[in-house]
């Protein structure tokens, strides 16, 4: 994966609120998080967006596949497998922390 850029093509500043940014790739299994930002170029975004991986959605890592292969995530009732390099471009926040702030429900 090329260097992470945000959805407007700007390179991601590593210092951008570092405390609150957690990458989806680093979320432990079975911990539900909310997607807040997707640091990827436009073309790469669409396959994810079309499958409901959209800022604001709830994502929960459910299973690592063998030998460091893609990880399976539950997204709005569907199961989606993502490679680590893709998941590390997705910024998330804990669902508990974000409750009432980001959750449209």
């Amino acid at each position: 994966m090329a260097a992470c850029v945000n959805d407007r093509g700007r390179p991601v500043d590593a210092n951008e609120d570092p405390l609150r940014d957690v990458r989806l790739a680093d979320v432990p299994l079975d911990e539900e998080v909310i997607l807040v930002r997707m640091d990827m170029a436009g073309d790469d975004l669409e396959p994810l967006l079309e499958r409901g991986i959209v800022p604001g959605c709830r994502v929960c890592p459910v299973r690592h596949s063998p030998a460091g292969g893609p990880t399976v995530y539950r997204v709005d009732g569907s199961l989606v497998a993502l490679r680590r390099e893709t998941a590390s471009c997705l910024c998330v926040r804990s669902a508990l922390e974000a409750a009432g702030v980001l959750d449209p429900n």
Partner: protein
Amino acid sequence: MTSREASPVLLGGTRSGPDTSPDRASAARPRVALVGPPNAGKSTLFNRLTGLRQKVANYPGVTVERKSGFHRTAYGLVDVVDLPGIHGLSPRSLDQIVTRDVLLGHAEGEPGPDAVILVLDATRLESHLMVAEPILALGLPSLVVLTMADELGRRKGQVTERGLSEQLGVEVALVNARAGQGLEKIERFLEALYTGGEEVRACPVVVAAEAEVGPRGRPLPVVDVFAARRARAQALGQAAHFQAPTPSKLTERLDSVFLHRVLGPLCFLAVVVVVFQSIFAWATPLMDGTEAVIATSGEWLAVRLPDTWIRSLVIDGVWLGVGSVVVFLPQILILFFFLGILEDSGYMARAAVIADRMMHRVGLQGQSFLPLLSAYACAVPAILAARTVEDERDRLATIFVAPFMTCSARLPVYALLIAAFIPERPLLGPVLGQRSAVLLGLYALGFLAAVGTAAILKRSLLRGKPSPFVMELPPYRLPTVKSIVARLLDRARVFLRRAGRIILAVAVALWVLAQIPQAPGGGPPPVADSALGAMGKVIEPVIEPLGFDWRIGIGLVTSLAAREVIVGTLGTIYGVEDEDETSLELQEALRQDLDLGSAVALMVFFVFALQCMSTVAVMRRETGGWRWPILQFSYMLLLAYVTAWGANALL
């Protein structure tokens, strides 16, 4: 997003505009298109509506399959077109472009549908409603079908048809397409295409079109478009009292085995072995049976044909030529039977996840694994199966390397040459003999060539940013007999039509070349004097460095039709030349013309060379031009020539 006027309901075929439908008989019928995301149960519904009377073709110029059939209503027939599974209408993939063109009536030779049946999975309603929005916004009369009603109920979810229907302004049907429950609304909708009933209406909500333009008319960033779409989908879900089902227990339990650290790869290996075993061991009796049927029917036919050139053309040209392809049909059907079960059950996506790490290393994706596995049976179905690879560059790379996998047509050639030139000696005690080791080596050589070529391609011609691997894992489901049968019929047709045509042409051409010039007393000339023999002699200087003479040259030319044809050709050549009643065994004859070096060279040549016109033909279709097949053929020929030369020089 463009919207268009809702087309009025057509009564008895007053379709406007020139009708260029390929099927004239159906020109007057109302046409309905099935649209929806993958794994939403679209094909099950399509099979349920049309039975097995389906037609599969390609959309002109592209490789997207067009599945169509018809449904009988009380008022008349309705044409049903099954569009490919899509995640939206953006021109990101070929499937989405074709779907959009068909729905808008822009597809070549196909008027737009009169109505759309939008098939969504009720258990994943909110994410599927996101896909639904741009389709409903086209303004076509629509029916929304929510499938998997049974699963939704079982997993304690719920949705009300009426709530969603009121929000969308179109009819909504909650169905279980497998068991055929809840299909009455679909029936009424299809009937209303004839009666002009109020069931057929377009979604009046065209909010999507406006919502996607930001302030001052600038288009919104794509993330915002989808975020807005998701918010609307959730609002719709709430209005429809949608309650998301609990995660499927069955899927969780099976995934904990199939994606398990240890068990997962073991199951994967077991699946690979079973598929492999089935296409070789279990298919053999069926293939032998087919061969016997072809031979017997050929004899039966031969007796009834006049003993002239016609008999020779029909039996030696057409019958044997086409027979050489048909014999692979059982193997291909068995292969697709397994692939069908793997795909319909949901395991295929897990296999892709398991294989992804391995395939990623050579620059391919997990989805490429099963097409490449299929290529051990035959490259033709493998190239067709590569359609499941979403990324275009990866798909091209997959179909480019598929012919390197040792297809079963190479086996008869290897078997003959190994038996003739490799003495049987134990290498690893009773486990591995020298002959098996050579055969395994030939398989390995092909595999290495495929992997190496893929790696080279992805670093050169098909270089590009690796696209993110986003693999949806559908819930596990029991495959239905109907969908498996439909798939098998469909694949059998595609294989026979595509491979059959080219083999027929080549077989007839070879027969003609072997007949001219006619011998003085009439009848075919000795092979050496025929046009075919002349061709062998023309290429002899080129293949001499490999240790081949003109006879092998003829074999190489005829094997262009299909690799195993060389065995028959060599038999004929040596048989014809040998005046003695007790003709030499083919193996012995070969031993006189080839030494160990040139025999190994011939095997190596067959590992690499693209001696298969069916593959070339399918390749041309699947890549939409001659560029790729010509490149592939030249590359493989060059590789074959150089390695064969090396083998001959070294041994």
